[in-house]
Each structure stands twice: as C-alpha cells, then as structure tokens.
C-alpha cells in the first residue's frame, strides 16, 4: 500500500506499530521524499502480510492516526499450488475446467502454461491455483481430481500436496 505522512520524527513508527499490533509481517518498506509534493510530506510504500480479514481494521487505525492511505494495492491470495494435467484439455472445454475452480469463490486459476505437441495428441498443462488458505486449496484440488477423472486427464500433483 502507498501512504502519505508528515515528515517528522516518529512518523514511521506510527505506521509500523499498527501492522505489528495486528500480527502482520512487513516484507518491504520504500521510504522516499517526492520532490514534486515538496517539503513536509513523505511517500511510503509498504508491502506486508497480514492475517486474513484484518485489512479494514488496519486502514481505520491509519485514519485515526491521520495517515493518508493513497492506494491499497492488490490484496494477494497467499497459497499457491501447481499441478500438471495431461490429456485433451482444449477439446474437453477448457473454460469449463477453469470455471469449476473460479466459481468456487475460494480459489482461482492463476496461471496456465500449455504445450500442444500435435493435433489429436494429448496436451500437457501446468496449472497454478491460488487461494488464501491451505484448506481451500485442498478443496479446490479435490474438485480438480473429479474433473480429471470425468474428462480423462492424468493429474500430477506435487509431493508436498497432502
């Protein structure tokens, strides 16, 4: 997120403290004086991991401390899992396969890389799905296993995927 605050001693602590208080983990801080905004205002970009559902509380705490939140970046979902599917992915309605995950509301297909060697030969696809907790990733994987069985794909999961 990008924040704007007064350039005076102790201000950085007033931003970091609330993040720490809600159990967050700061990944990076970019702290710079923007020559165009001039004098006593400072731009600050913070990337942090915070517990699920705690963003609103954090933002209201910043408001209470008169820290101006300019922009909250994409709220990233944290758990990712890659699998490889081998089979006729295109001819068995790839949109439907993706939609079976995306329509759950708790997981989504994040990335697809596909290799199609020749017409009528099975394609190989690496699919990354993401979600915000391990339990939901496992639920999504169970759906994919069902889809793979119904559509005749070979599904290759990662060893740690239990």
């Amino acid at each position, binding site marked *: 997120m990008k924040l704007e605050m007064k350039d005076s001693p102790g201000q950085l602590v007033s931003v970091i403290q609330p993040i720490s208080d809600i159990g967050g983990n700061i990944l990076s801080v970019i702290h710079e004086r923007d020559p165009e905004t001039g004098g006593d205002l400072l731009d600050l970009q913070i990337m942090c991991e915070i517990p699920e559902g705690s963003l609103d509380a954090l933002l209201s705490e910043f408001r209470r401390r008169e820290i101006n939140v300019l922009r909250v970046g994409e709220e990233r979902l944290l758990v990712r899992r*890659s699998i*490889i599917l*081998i089979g006729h992915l295109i001819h068995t309605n790839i949109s439907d396969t993706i939609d079976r995950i995306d329509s759950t509301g708790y997981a989504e297909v994040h990335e697809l890389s596909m290799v199609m060697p020749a017409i009528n030969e099975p394609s190989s696809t690496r699919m990354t799905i993401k979600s915000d907790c391990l339990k939901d990733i496992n639920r999504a994987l169970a759906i994919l296993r069902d889809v793979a069985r119904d559509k005749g794909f070979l599904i290759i999961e*990662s060893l740690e995927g239990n």
Partner: protein
Amino acid sequence: MRIAIIGFGSVGRGVAEVIAAKTTGLIITAVADSRSGIIDGSGLDIAAILRNKQATGMCGTPDITVSDIISSDAYDVLVEVSPTNAETGEPALGYIRQALAGGKHVVTSNKGPVALKFEELHALAADNNVSLRYEATVCGAIPLMHTIKHGIAGNEITRLYGVFNGTCNYILTRMAEEGLTYQQALLEARELGYAEADPTYDVQGIDAAIKLVILANAVWGMKKSLSDVDIIGIDRVTTAAIALAEREDQTIRLIGEIDPANEIIRVSPSIIPKSHPLVVRDTLNAVTIETLLAGEITLIGKGAGSSETASAVIADLLFIRDCYGRRD
C-alpha cells in the same frame, strides 16, 4: 547353519557364490531349480554345482524335487529365491508355508507370497519360533526393513514415501535429461535390460504398489492387499509435462506413499523439487522414512539386480545366524 536354496537363477547363484567364498559359518546342503535338485547333509560342492548348472542348465538331478528338499531335514534355513508370481504367490507360497510349519527359518526375495499372505506367514513363523525375513522383496539392496525394524526400532513411523521402481525412475530420468519421449525411453530401458519385454508390471506402478503392500503390512500391520492401493503409472506422462515441471526447478518422479494418518496408500507420478533427496538418477531407488524420534531418514541405493538382491538375502541369513545360530 545349513542352507537350502530354492531357485538357482542369478540371485540363487549369487547367494551360493558368496556363501562358498566367505567364512560365514553357513553351509549349503540343498539346491533346487525348476528342473532338478541336489541334497547333501554334510555340505555341497558349490563350484561343481555352478559348473554343472552352466553346462547342463540343471543344478542337480531330475529325480530330486523341491518338495523332497523342503520335507527333508537337511537344512535349517530355506532361501526361497524362485521367480515371483504376483497373482497367486505359488509355488513359492506353498514352499514357505511348509518350511515354516516344519520349524525352519525362511529368507525370501519373492514378493508374491509376502505381499499376498504376510499376516498368515508372519503368524506361522511366530508359532514355530522361527524367523521369516524378506529384505530383498522391497528396494533390493537398500536395508529398508532392517533399518525400520532394528536401526530405528522404538520409533513410530508416521509416513513412508519414495521411489520404489528403478525402471520407471530410469525412464523419467531420461525423459527429463534428454527430452526423450516415453516410448523412446522405454525402448532404451529394454535394450539395457532395465525393463522386461512386457513392461506393464513396472510402468503401470504395480511393482511399486506391491512393495507398498508389503511395507503397510510389515510396518503397520495394516492387512492391505494390492486392491487397496491407488495406482497411477507413468505410461501417460509426456516429455512436455516434465519440461513444464523443470521450468520451475522441479521434475516428475513415480512416488509411492503410505500416510496412515490420512489413509493414503498410493503410487502416482508426482511433481517434486529437483533439490529433493528423493530425486535420484537412473535405476536408483530412494525412500524417506518419517519418524517421531529420529525425524526424517532417507535411504538411497540400487533397487534391483541379482548381486543387489543377493546382498539383501545374505544380510538376512547372517542376521538369522547371529540370532539363532548358536543354539545349534
């Protein structure tokens, strides 16, 4: 201790050669192959038998059968190393039963009987106060059973997983490293003698699954059979799929896994980081044992081959000698 060897193929001959060459306190008193047999209670001339086998294809004379040997009193330990029959376990199963019931120890490399009738054979050995050992049935030369039963005795084993089939591992290694297709890699494995003419048993994961059945029953007393294992082989894995995994510093290996807490017994191609200790090359096997006290232990070694199998059989024999030998 007097040894009877049933099955005089490359494993049986390998065992006989080691016993003949070393001072182990073991003497071979009977040998049988599929067509002949020979018994001498005072000890056989192994060099002469090996020469005879090479010249005539027979280790003894046709009038002495396996049954004659097993029902004789000329031996203390039966070494059963005849070819495996995964469906019925016979005729080896009958030989092992008869020897145990007659108060003889048994060492076998034969997966069929151990996978099919572990509970029965284990109880029969216990009832007769003799030992049944089967190190060679799982992962060839790797001392997996010995490690679990003795080396880390007292540990609770929470999970066991690894590469249990060297043929599949060879094929996947070649597909990953040289970009060969599955068919090309299989052909190469056949030419090198790593795959059978009919590779079904290996590439469809059945061989690995049989080893999981033996481990499930021997380590956890689970009473499982082959139909309880979820099995996916490697015959549909594409070179492109492996390349997709390799892009992320991962690869694909056929992994067998027993995870009792999650009720998992399965064999399936799995994505695994290339830095993982289970990513071994060519025909090697590798098994990770997860325990409560000792943490993780990974064993790597040759999973097949006649001298490797003979190594496991000899180790079992010497274990029996050390535990029981001095009573004679």
